[in-house]
C-alpha cells in the first residue's frame, strides 16, 4: 500500500503508516530512544537532541523525534556511536544542573534521572562554576519555577502555545542565559497551567500545592475520576500512607481528556484532608449542634423524617456517585415514602425536565466528546464551556486551530470561546427558544427579521456555515433545555434543525452538556421527582414495574421538584428534608431564598464533609466521605460511566454515603442488603435500562458510554 512504509530499525523490519516519526516506529518495535523535548501530543521541535540516531544515507545523525519514516530507511539506535551521542547530550544537560535530587519533588519520577541512569555518563568532566539563577520563582499562586533545574525542553511553552492557546510563559534571553519566564506584571494565569508541571521532564516546574509533600515512591496511585465537572477527566489520586491525598495526576483517556486536566480539577485535592472535615455525627439539642454517636444520630434522623409523613423530601447530589444517589432515592421512596426527590434545588422551567428526558431517551442526545474532533462544524449552545467544562474547551480549540473546524458559539456573553467562533451569537438570556427557532427557520430559508435578540443577518450567517457542513457536533447545555423558559420549544426547534441538516445529508451528533461530575448519573439513577430510575415516567405501569424489581412498592404519584420544596417549605407543605452532598443554602443562585425556606422546616438532615451553610441549619448532620475514600461510578456529560476507586481510608468517624443510607435504612427497619459497592451497581444495571449489560468490571479503566440508538 502506498500509505504504508517499510523500514528497518536495528535490523528489524517494520511497516508503519506514511508520515510516522522514526521514534514512534521504534516504539512499535519496543526499541526505546531517550527523549526530553519530544511529546507525542505536541508538534516535534528537535531541540534537545537527546534522541539522535543514525540513518543510512544521512551524513549526520538525525533526531528521531522529528524525522519522518521513508521507504527502505535503515535506522540504527544500537551502535556505540549512538550510545555515545546519548551520553554526551546528558552530560551537556547535567553540567549546569544543580543535581539536588534529594530535595527535589521530581526525584524518583524524573526523566532526567531515568535517562541518566540508563544512558548517561558515570561522571562529569565539567570543572567550572555552574550557571545560577534566582530561585524559586512563583509564576502564579499555583506554579513555582526552579530555573537551575530547567533543561529548556520548552514543553511548557509549547503546551501553553499549542494546546491551551494561552501563551503566558515564554523563553527569555538567549543561549546560555535562556530561561523560562512570564511577562512583567502578568502572572501565569491559564486554566491549564498545571499540565506544564506534569509535562516538565525535571523538577523545574512545581506545584505549590504538592511541593515538599511527598516522595514519589512513598505514594500510592489510585485510578479515579475528577469530581469537579461533567467532563469527568481521568485522574490518578496520589496518597501517602493510605491517609493523605497529596495530588492528582492526569490519566490519559484519549476519548475524554486527551491526557490533560484543568487547574480547577487538578489543584482541588486539599479539601480531602482539610482539618475542618466533619468527623463525628452531630445532633441538635437545645438549639445547638452537638456530637453524638452514629446510633443516636441515625435514629434522630429517621424519626424526624418519618414524623413529617408525606410532607418529607430529599435532595441528592451531582457530585456523589451513582451508587450513592441510587440508594438515596430508593431510601426516600421506599423507607421515607416520598417521590419528592431531586438532584438540585434550582428552579426549573415548566416542562424543562420532560424535554431533557425526551432527548435522552429518544437518543437525540447521543453525541460524544470525540465528535468534536471529527466534525467540520461545531455548534455550542448555552454554555461557557471554558469555565464550565474546561477540558472540553481544549477539544474545541484543537478542532478549530488544527483541523480547521468552524465554531458557531451561541452564548449571551462574550466568553473565551467567542474568539474562536466563525459565528458568535450572543442571544438574550430567556430567549433561547426564539433563538433556536430562528436558527432552524433560517436554515430552511425563512430567516426571521430577528430572533432571540439577534438580527436576521447574524442568524443567517450562522445558518450559512451550517449549510456547508458535512459533519456537525451540536453541543447543547442542559440549562437551555431545563432551566430556560420554553425548554420544550427549544428542544423541538433543535430537533427540527437537526432533522433538516440530516435530510440534506449532513451527519449530526448532539451532545448534552451537564456541569456536575455526576449530574447525568444522578438523573439516570432516579434523582427526579417525576421519574423512577431509568427515566420511567411515574404512572401506574411504571410503578408496578419498579415494585417488581424492588420487591416493594414506591409511592405512585409524581413528587415535588427541588424548587417546589423551597416554595412548599414556606407554607408548611414540606416539613422535613434530607440533603445528601449539597450546600444549596450557599452554592445556588437563589441561595438566600433557599436558606430562608430551609429555616421554616421542622426537620433537616444533612450528609456532608463539612459544616456547610446548609449543615449549620440542620437538626442532624452526618459526616460523609469524599470520593477519594469510596468506590463507585460517575457518569459524565457524554454518558460515560466511569469508575472511581478508594484511595485512602475514611477520615476518622466519617462514613461513605452508601453506608450511611444503608445504616439509616436498617435503623428504620428496612431490608437493604448489598454485600459490596459492586452489588449496588449490579442492581442499577438491572433497574436502569440504559445501564443494562454493564458491570463494574466491564466498565474498565476508561469507562463505557451508555447509548440509545436513534
Amino acid at each position, binding site marked *: 500500500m502506498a500509505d504504508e512504509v517499510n523500514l528497518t530499525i536495528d535490523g528489524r523490519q517494520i511497516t508503519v503508516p506514511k508520515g510516522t516519526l522514526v521514534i514512534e516506529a521504534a516504539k512499535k518495535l519496543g526499541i526505546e530512544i531517550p527523549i526530553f523535548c519530544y511529546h507525542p501530543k505536541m508538534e*516535534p*521541535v*528537535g*531541540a*534537545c*537532541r*537527546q534522541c*539522535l540516531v543514525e540513518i543510512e544515507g544521512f551524513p*549526520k*545523525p538525525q533526531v528521531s523525534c*522529528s524525522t519522518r519514516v521513508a521507504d527502505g530507511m535503515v535506522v540504527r539506535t544500537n551502535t556505540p556511536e549512538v550510545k555515545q*551521542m546519548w551520553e*554526551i*547530550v546528558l552530560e*551537556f*544537560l547535567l*553540567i*549546569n544542573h544543580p543535581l539536588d535530587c534529594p530535595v527535589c519533588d521530581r526525584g524518583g519520577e524524573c526523566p532526567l534521572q531515568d535517562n541518566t541512569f540508563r544512558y548517561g555518563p558515570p561522571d562529569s*568532566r*565539567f570543572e*567550572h*562554576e555552574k550557571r545560577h539563577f534566582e530561585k524559586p520563582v512563583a509564576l502564579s499562586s499555583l506554579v513555582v519555577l526552579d530555573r537551575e533545574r530547567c*533543561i*529548556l525542553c520548552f514543553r511548557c511553552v509549547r503546551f501553553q502555545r499549542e494546546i491551551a492557546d494561552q501563551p503566558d510563559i*515564554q*523563553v527569555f*534571553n*538567549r*543561549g*546560555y*542565559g*535562556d530561561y523560562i519566564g512570564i511577562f512583567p506584571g502578568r502572572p501565569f494565569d491559564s486554566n491549564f497551567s498545571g499540565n506544564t508541571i506534569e509535562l516538565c521532564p525535571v523538577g523545574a516546574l512545581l506545584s505549590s500545592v504538592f511541593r515538599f509533600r511527598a516522595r514519589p515512591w512513598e505514594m500510592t496511585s489510585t485510578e479515579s475520576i475528577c469530581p469537579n465537572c461533567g467532563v469527568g477527566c481521568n485522574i490518578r489520586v496520589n496518597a501517602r500512607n493510605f491517609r493523605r491525598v497529596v495530588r492528582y495526576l492526569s490519566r490519559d483517556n484519549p476519548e475524554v481528556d486527551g491526557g490533560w486536566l484543568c487547574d480547577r480539577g487538578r489543584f482541588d485535592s486539599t479539601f480531602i484532608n482539610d482539618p475542618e472535615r466533619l468527623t463525628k455525627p452531630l445532633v441538635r439539642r437545645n438549639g445547638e449542634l452537638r456530637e453524638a454517636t452514629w446510633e443516636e444520630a441515625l435514629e434522630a434522623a429517621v424519626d424526624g423524617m418519618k414524623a413529617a409523613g408525606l410532607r418529607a423530601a430529599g435532595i441528592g447530589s451531582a457530585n456523589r456517585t451513582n451508587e450513592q444517589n441510587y440508594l438515596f432515592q430508593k431510601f426516600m421512596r421506599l423507607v421515607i415514602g416520598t417521590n419528592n426527590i431531586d438532584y438540585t434545588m434550582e428552579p426549573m422551567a415548566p416542562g424543562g425536565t420532560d424535554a431533557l428526558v425526551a432527548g435522552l431517551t429518544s437518543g437525540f442526545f447521543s453525541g460524544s466528546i470525540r465528535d468534536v474532533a471529527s466534525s467540520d462544524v461545531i455548534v455550542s449552545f448555552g454554555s461557557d464551556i471554558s469555565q464550565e467544562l474546561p477540558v472540553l474547551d481544549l477539544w474545541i480549540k484543537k478542532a478549530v486551530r488544527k483541523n480547521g473546524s468552524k465554531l458557531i458559539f451561541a452564548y449571551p456573553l462574550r466568553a473565551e470561546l467567542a474568539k474562536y467562533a466563525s459565528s458568535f451569537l450572543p442571544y438574550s438570556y430567556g430567549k433561547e427558544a426564539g433563538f433556536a427557532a430562528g436558527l432552524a427557520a433560517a436554515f430552511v430559508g425563512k430567516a426571521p427579521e430577528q430572533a432571540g435578540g439577534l438580527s436576521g443577518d447574524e442568524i443567517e450567517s450562522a445558518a450559512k456555515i451550517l449549510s456547508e457542513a458535512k459533519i456537525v457536533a451540536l453541543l447543547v447545555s442542559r440549562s437551555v433545555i431545563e432551566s430556560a423558559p420554553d425548554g420544550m420549544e427549544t428542544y423541538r426547534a433543535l430537533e427540527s434543525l437537526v432533522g433538516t441538516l440530516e435530510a440534506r445529508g449532513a451527519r449530526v451528533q448532539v451532545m448534552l452538556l451537564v456541569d456536575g461530575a455526576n449530574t447525568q448519573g444522578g438523573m439516570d439513577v432516579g434523582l427526579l421527582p417525576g421519574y423512577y430510575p431509568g427515566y420511567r415516567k411515574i404512572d401506574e405501569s411504571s410503578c408496578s414495574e419498579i415494585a417488581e424489581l424492588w420487591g416493594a412498592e414506591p409511592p405512585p404519584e409524581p413528587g415535588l421538584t427541588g424548587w417546589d420544596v423551597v416554595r412548599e417549605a414556606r407554607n408548611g407543605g414540606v416539613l422535613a428534608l434530607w440533603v445528601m452532598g449539597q450546600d444549596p443554602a450557599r452554592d445556588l443562585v437563589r441561595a438566600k431564598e433557599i436558606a430562608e425556606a430551609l429555616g421554616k422546616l421542622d426537620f433537616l438532615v444533612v450528609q456532608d464533609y463539612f459544616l456547610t451553610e446548609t449543615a449549620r441549619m440542620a437538626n442532624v448532620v452526618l459526616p460523609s466521605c469524599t470520593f477519594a475514600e469510596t468506590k463507585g461510578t460517575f457518569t459524565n456529560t457524554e454518558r460515560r460511566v466511569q469508575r472511581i476507586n478508594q484511595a485512602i481510608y475514611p477520615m476518622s468517624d466519617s462514613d461513605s454515603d452508601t453506608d450511611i443510607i444503608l445504616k439509616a435504612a436498617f435503623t428504620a427497619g428496612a431490608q437493604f442488603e448489598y454485600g459490596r459497592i459492586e452489588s449496588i451497581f449490579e442492581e442499577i444495571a438491572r433497574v436502569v435500562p440504559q445501564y443494562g449489560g454493564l458491570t463494574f468490571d466491564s466498565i474498565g479503566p476508561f469507562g463505557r458510554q451508555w447509548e440509545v440508538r436513534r
Partner: protein
Amino acid sequence: MRILFKHLDVPDIDDMDVYIREGGYKALEKALKEMSPDGVIQAVTKSGLRGRGGAGFPTGKKWAFIPKDPSLKKYLCCNADESEPGTFKDRELIVRNPHQLIEGMAICCYAIGSERAFIYIRGEYIEPARKMEQAIAKASNRGFLGERILGTDFNLQIQVYRGAGAYICGEESALLNSLEGIRGEPRLRPPFPAIKGLYESPTVINNVETLANVPHIVLNGGEWFASIGTEKSTGTKVVSMSGHVNNPGNYEVDMGTPVREIIFEHAGGILGGKRLKAYVPGGSSVPMLTEKHLDVGLDFESMLAAGSMLGSAGFMVMNEDTCIVRATLNMARFYAHESCGKCTPCREGTSWMVEMLESIEEGTGKMGYIDRLVDIANNINGRSFCALGDASAMPVLSSIEHFRDEYETHVSERGCPFAGDRGFALRGG
C-alpha cells in the same frame, strides 16, 4: 575582474540617475520585456551562481524550487544581516550601489513570481538601512518598483526591516521568525522555506552579494558569468580583508584567486612586515589555515580541499604576534554569546568551551582540557540543530589542529606566553 564593484570609480553611482546613465535597470527591463520568468531562472542556473551568504547553494536551483502555482503568495527575503565576524562586504555593496541590489531583487521576484520582498538588515547598519530606504523610494517613483513596473503587469514592493542584534537571525529560518515578530531561533526543516517560508508561503532567501550579481548575469548571459572564476565556483567574490594587513577593506577578485595574491597584492601584505601565522578565509565560522596554505585558491572547492571553507569570504589575517588561544577564545565567546539556546549541544557546549579556553589562557588550565575541547567541539559539530553550533566548533578544532603546541605551552607555563597586547581581538572580545 570587477563585476559588482565595476562602478565604484564612478562618482555618485549610488544616485539613481547616475546608475541609470551607467546602464542601470537595463537588466530589469530586459528580464521583464524579453525574458520569461523561467528564462531568467535558466540564465541564473547556467551562470553557475552560488549563494554568497556562506553555504554556496546554487541560486538558480533555489529559485526553481519555488512552486509555480499562481494562487500562492511568494516572498523574497534579502539577507543583509551580515553578522559573521570579519565580514563587511554587504554593507559596502549596499552603501555604494544600492540600486544594483534593488535591480537584482526585482529580477529575482519576477522570476519566482513574488510581489513582496524584504531586506532584513543588520540592526547596527543604520546608515545602510537609510540609504536603502531612500533608494527604494526613488526607484518606486521612477516606476522600477511599485505597480505595473516599466509598463508591464509586474508589481513589486520592497520593505527594509532592521534586525535587533542577534547573529542567529542571519540564519535563514531564524531570519523568517524574526521578520514575523517571533523569537529568533531556527525552524525545523522540512518544510523548507521554498515550500513554507515567510508566513507559511514559498520564500527565497538570498544574500546581498548573490542578488547583486543577478543584473549582470541577465545582461551578459549565464555563459559569460560561468566563464569567470573556476569551473564550479563561477564569477567573482568580494573578500573582506581585516586583521593584520596593511590595507584592510573589500576587494573583488575572481573565484580561484590564490590567497597569497589576495593578502600580499590586494591587501598590501602583513602589518609591520611580520610573518603570517594564520588566516581565516570565510568568517569565524570556518576552520583557520596557516602559512602552509598560501597557495590555495579562493573558491568553494579549493578551500574545502585545504580543510576550510569559503564561507562569507570574511578574511581575517593574524600575524606571528597573535596568541592563538586568545584569538580562539575570542571567537568562542562570540558563539557562546550568540547561541540561541534552542538546542542542548550548542547552548551548553559553547559556554563550556569558553570556560576551558579562559582557564587555559589565564594559566589555570589543565593539559586534559585540550583533548576535552576537541571532544566537546566534535560533539557540538554535526549534532546541533543548526549550523551555528557546527560553526562554533571550527575555530577550536582548527586552532588545536594547527597550534596544539601553543596550547600546551599555555598549560605548562601556566599562562600566556605572549606579552602585552596579544593582538587579534574581535570587538567585545
